[in-house]
Structure formats: structure tokens, C-alpha cells
């Protein structure tokens, strides 16, 4: 297994680079004349589909967001940024935003830590039957989110739920998981964690296997123990893979929809709890557009705000990564200087 992270990260720049190179050797004006178009032709299906389903829909959604537009009644009038102004003043939207980011943190952070630890364990050569465990990790990932949500809904059920039964067994009061804001976020985050930890583990495992063994051997000679090797070699070298996994997770979690929808039992669950305890942005978007009062324009404004939030969140993750990079550069420079100094002294 090679590192899929690198492949994914470099795919686009790599592709464009290659076209550049191929179109360059225009020596004779012979049959090669028509060839420069070929690469564009080959990659065009993606761009055509992306233009229709990506660019056009984004633009159209933005246009809808500038109108007073009822899903049933159709377009009413151009209102400019009114929908966005209303959004700023909408307590439910802000509640949904806080919920979304809270669930994001509760799912991404434990998930990454767990995945790193699991990847380290799975990489151990003493582990028997590694393939069994590796494929086992993917089972939650290929399970339908609906099935997961229904199982978790009954695990966290108030009266007959397994988790409350355990809590009672330990002598505590059973918890009404749906009623509390934090408790509902923990319940929903646990579904996400269960589903995606294995996927991230495999990404990390692939990246770990790409780390040259000589690093570990050198560290062992220097007397580094297992924990030190993990924190000083594995984790720093996995940073690109972690960055990739975190960005994917953040973008995915900002669009959390099915889990909170199905966690809220019964009809009318699009409100995300009786006090919007676990209403997420996407759930709010859906309920505004497809339920009374069918505010299509307003929900388009929510969609565009969500796009901006996703971009900001991704930028934030990359920014943090750049900080790490800079710190690493600095320590490397200092290290080199120190080595040079030591050499001089020795001389």
C-alpha cells in the first residue's frame, strides 16, 4: 500500500503539469499539430460534469439566495442580501452553527487520536492476522449511515436503551440523551466516530508503512523507547496524512445531516430536538427549504454561508499546518547551526 494521501493531494497539480509538458514539443507543423488538444479532450468529461453539477449549481444557488423564493410558489422578488441579513439575526441558525462545530470537535479530535493509536497497533509486526483486523476496520465505514443511526438511536434510548441500562447498573440516574445539548452532541459524535475511525486508521496505516524503517532503527540505537518513537518519528512524519484526514473530516462534519435527523426519533425530527439541541446547519437548511414555510431562497443563503464556513474552516486547518511547518523549519535550522558549531568546536 502506498500513501493514498500523496496521490490525492497531488492529483490536480500533477495532471496540469503533465499537460504542459506534453504540449511543449511543437517542433514540426506536421501531424502533431492536432495533438495538443488531446489531453484536454481526455480530461474534459470531469470538467464538463463539474461545470454542470458544480459551478452551475453553485452559481444558481447564489442567484436563488438573492430572492424571496418559495419552493411551492416560485420566485417572488429580488431581495438582494436580505436573506443573508436575516440569517445574521436568526437565533436558530446560530444555534445550529454552534451545534455543528461542537459535534465537529467531539467527533474529529477523538477520532484522529484513536485512528493514530489503532494504526500504530495494526502496524506492529507481532500482530497476528493483520488483514482480518484491517478489513474489519472498514466494516463500519461501508455500513449504511441509516442502519448505524437506527442502532445508535436505540442504544441511546431513554427507557430501554443499552447505555442507560449500563448507567443504571452502575448506580447512576439514567440520562435523557436527547434533552441535553452536550449529551446529544456526544451521542451523535459517537456515531460519526464509530463510522469513520476505521477509514482514518487505514489512511494513517498506509502512511506509516511509507516511513523508512531506518529512522526507527536509528532511534532504537539511540535508545528511544516505543512511545518516543511514536511521538517523535511516526506522528511528525504523518503530518501530511493527518492534515488530509482532518480536512476531509471537517468538511464532512460541517455537512452532518443523516445522523442528527435519524437520532431525533419520530416525525418532525428535522427540528433537531425539541429545543434544537442537535440541529445542524444542513438539517436547518433542509427544513427551511422542504418544509413549511418552504423558504427556498433563505435556505440557499444558508447553503452559501455553509460553503464560506467550509472554506474558512479548511483555511484554518491549513494555517495551523503552516505554523507547524514554520516551527519545524526553524528547529531544523537551529539544529543545523548547532551541528555546524559543534563541528567547528571539534575542529
Amino acid at each position, binding site marked *: 500500500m502506498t500513501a493514498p494521501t500523496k496521490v490525492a493531494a497531488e492529483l490536480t497539480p500533477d495532471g496540469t503539469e503533465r499537460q504542459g509538458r506534453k504540449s511543449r514539443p511543437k517542433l514540426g507543423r506536421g501531424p502533431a499539430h492536432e495533438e495538443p488538444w488531446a489531453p484536454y479532450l481526455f480530461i474534459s468529461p470531469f470538467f464538463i460534469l463539474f461545470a454542470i*453539477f458544480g459551478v452551475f449549481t453553485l452559481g444558481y444557488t447564489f442567484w436563488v439566495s438573492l430572492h424571496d423564493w418559495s*419552493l411551492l410558489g416560485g420566485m417572488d422578488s429580488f431581495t438582494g442580501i436580505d436573506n443573508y441579513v436575516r440569517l445574521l439575526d436568526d437565533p436558530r441558525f446560530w444555534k445550529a452553527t454552534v451545534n455543528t462545530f461542537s459535534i465537529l470537535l467531539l467527533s474529529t479530535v477523538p477520532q484522529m487520536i484513536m485512528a493514530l493509536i489503532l494504526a500504530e497497533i495494526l502496524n506492529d509486526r507481532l500482530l497476528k492476522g493483520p488483514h482480518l483486523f484491517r478489513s474489519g476496520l472498514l466494516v463500519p465505514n461501508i455500513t449504511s449511515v441509516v442502519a448505524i443511526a437506527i442502532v445508535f438511536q436505540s442504544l441511546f434510548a431513554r*427507557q430501554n436503551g443499552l447505555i442507560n441500562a449500563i448507567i443504571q447498573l452502575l448506580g447512576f440516574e439514567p440520562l435523557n440523551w*436527547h434533552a441535553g445539548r452536550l449529551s446529544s452532541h456526544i451521542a451523535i459524535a459517537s456515531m460519526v466516530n464509530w463510522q469513520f475511525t476505521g477509514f482514518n486508521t487505514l489512511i494513517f496505516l498506509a502512511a506509516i508503512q511509507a516511513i523508512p524503517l531506518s529512522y526507527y532503527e536509528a532511534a532504537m540505537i539511540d535508545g528511544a523507547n516505543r512511545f518516543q518513537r511514536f511521538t517523535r518519528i511516526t506522528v511528525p512524519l504523518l503530518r501530511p496524512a493527518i492534515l488530509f484526514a482532518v480536512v476531509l473530516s471537517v468538511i464532512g462534519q460541517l*455537512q452532518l445531516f443523516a445522523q442528527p435527523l435519524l437520532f431525533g426519533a419520530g416525525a418532525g425530527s428535522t427540528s433537531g430536538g425539541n429545543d434544537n439541541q442537535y440541529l445542524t446547519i444542513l438539517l436547518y437548511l433542509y427544513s427551511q427549504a422542504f418544509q*413549511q414555510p418552504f423558504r427556498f431562497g433563505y435556505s440557499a443563503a444558508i447553503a452559501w454561508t455553509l460553503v464560506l464556513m467550509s472554506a474558512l474552516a479548511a483555511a484554518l486547518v491549513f494555517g495551523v499546518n503552516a505554523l507547524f511547518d514554520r516551527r519545524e523549519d526553524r528547529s531544523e535550522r537551529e539544529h543545523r547551526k548547532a551541528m555546524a558549531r559543534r563541528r567547528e568546536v571539534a575542529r
Partner: protein
Amino acid sequence: MRSPTRIVAAFLALAVILAACGSDADDTAGTDDGDNGTDTEASGDPVTLNLWTFGNFGYDELIEEYQDDNPNITIETLSQEFDAHHDALITSLAAGTGGPDIAAAEVAFIGAFTNQADSFLNLLDYGAADIQDDYLDWKWDQATTLDGSATIGLPTDVGGMAICYRMDLFEEAGLPTDRDEVSALWENSWEDYIDVGIQYREATGRAFIDNEGLLYDAVVNQSPDTYYNSDGEYIFEQSEQVAYAWQIVTSAIEAEIDAKTPAWSAEWNAGMNNGDFAVLTCPAWMRGYIEDQAPDTFGDWDVATVPEGGGNWGGSHLVIPAQSEHPQEAYDFMAWILAPEQQLRVFEGTGNFPSTPELYDSPQMREFTSEFLNNAPLGEIYSDNALDVVAQNIGENYNLINQEIGEALNRVSDGLETPDEAWETAMANINRELGL
């Protein structure tokens, strides 16, 4: 996890595909316009009608028969789940294309659709007034605009309202088990109903009702004045019936007779089996649901009448979106399948209760009982109940208002807010959502 843009894209793609499919039919339909149904039959131009329903409407056999009698008509049915069906229908209405020729619209949506009558065929133009007397007045009015100028749907079934109760649990609590005696316990008022609940709880230590939301729905829908008055103005804040239902439900919560199992949840289904609650608000179609979810309770349930008279929960209409290419053929089929004779056959097949009162006196209905529900005379109970229902202006945003109030009651039940706080929050939320 899908991005919003991708969802929109998927719908657009669907719309494009369906539009492409639709345009073929366009050409053949052009010549039919203006012809009435019988002429088309004579000329024999093949016509395909798309029928969208949800759940189980029990039409399969009838459709076969209609196609045999009208060889030029082909009916393609698509039955989805409740939410998926209405989402798809609304999306096709919004797109102006890609919709069915005939669609089912549940009572939760009919108010919004009637307020958007332009998107549907006005059935009065096709002679629907001639068959108006076949149907329950209040049901007919649900799909008719306030000024009476347009009727967009013909009634399918009605829910009606009754109370299903567990005889075994009633007996355990020392309560009467005979259905007439049970009905008499609470016949006069919902307060008596709650008193029975308190007696039950004191005797058994268990909850009486399943959840506060369904109790609220049962009470509030007994009056014509709930959220809108007959002129279409909002009256939810002043409505006496809303206040009454609120008071009944909050007192039920205070009396601790509420099992707090949300409707349609796994806990609710489990509760039907293991006796977490002793009563259930029971429209006609609920029988099938109990049979599916709690088959082991065979013979344990019986049916009593609802306090304070009539009531309705659920039931649908069939509507024809204005974009249909074959309105006349669609109407002809719809009028046939919803005629009393056909409704009786649907009732016998699925238990969906007819919306045509002339059947209520028929022996088939009068004598209809259910073994599962201890041979309760369902035909009689629901017929009498359906005739008691009063017409109600459902209104464009019925669902929104009803849901906000339901959630407020749920907050009271969860102990998050006091009844007064919950009411204030609910009113503030509704007013903000409606932009009042």
C-alpha cells in the same frame, strides 16, 4: 453525507431526465386536448398516467381492472415513503416539470397545496362539483380554496379518531374492560380521561398515555378554530381550543401519566409490546401499525370512543399537478378509483377508511370488525366518528405551527421549561418563522 449543492444537482439531473421523458408524451398529447375521456377511449390513443403514492393505498388490483376496461390507458405507479414522496412531489412542483399526473397528498400537506392552487388542476373545471355530495363535507373542504373557486383534490381515506386500550392492563389496574364501559369513563371530557390515567398510574405504577404530542393532536383537532379561522387569518395565539388542548396536555404531564415515548420511535414500538402505556390514540389506519409492530398483543387491545366527540388524524387526497399532460384522463381515472364502490374495496383490503359517507350505512361497513382488536366494531366506531368531525381551515402553515407547539410540550415533558415558559418560546418561534 451529501453536500447541499450535490442534492440540488441531483434534483436538477432528475428534472432534466424526467423532462426528457415527458416530452415524448407531449407530442401525442397535443391532439388529445379538448377531447373528453370517452372520445380518447374510442380513438384509442395510448396514454400513460403516472401515479405517485406513499405507504399502502391498496390500489394495485383496482388499477389492473381499470387498465383492462380502458386498454389505451397505462398507469404507472410509484409508491415511496411518506417523506420521500412529498419531497419528490414538492420538488417537481417547484421545477414545474417532472411531476406525476396524479399524486397523493396527505392532510399535513393539503393545506399548503390548496394555498398554491395554481400549481394544480382545478377539478371544478372537470365537473368535480357533480360528485361533491359523495364525500364528507369537511374532507372536501380541506382541498378547496377559502373562496370556493377551486378544488384541487378528491378525498381518499380519512383517519377518524378513537382510543385503543389494553384490556389486560386495564384489568390489572381494576378498571372496566368492556368497550362501552370504558368509553363511558371519559365520554364527557378529556379531564376524565386524565383522571382515569391517574387511577391507572396509582394502581400499577406505570404510565397511561404514550406521549404528549399525540394527545395534543387528538384534542386540538376537535374544533374548527385552531390555527386559522375561516377567513384564513392566524388565530393560534387566541384560539380557545389550542389553549384547552395545551392545558389538558400540561396537566397530563404534571399528573405523570406520560410514558414519554416519541411517536414512530423504536421505543414507542417497543412500548406497544411491553405495556409501557395502556392507551393509544387510534385512527383507523393505526390498526395495521399495531398489528405489524406488536403482533404478540393479539386480542389484548380493544377500541373505545374518543372523549368529546369527533376527531381526525391522517387521510389523504389525490391531486393532479397543473403540469400533467393528460388532465382529462387523469381526472377520469381519479374519479373512478375514489368512487364509493372502489373505496369500499380498498377498505376491505387495507382498512383505509372511506371518505364517502353513503358507505357508512352499508352492511359491509357496519359489520366490519377486527379480530386483532378483540372484534371491536371498527366500521361502526369510525363511521359515527367521521360524521362528527367539523370542517377546519387547515391553512398554509399548519404543520409548522403544530410542530412548534408539539416541541414546546415536549420541552415541558423533559423538564426543560415550565408550561408558561414553553408557551412563550413557542409563540416567539412561530411568529419569527412566519415573519409576523
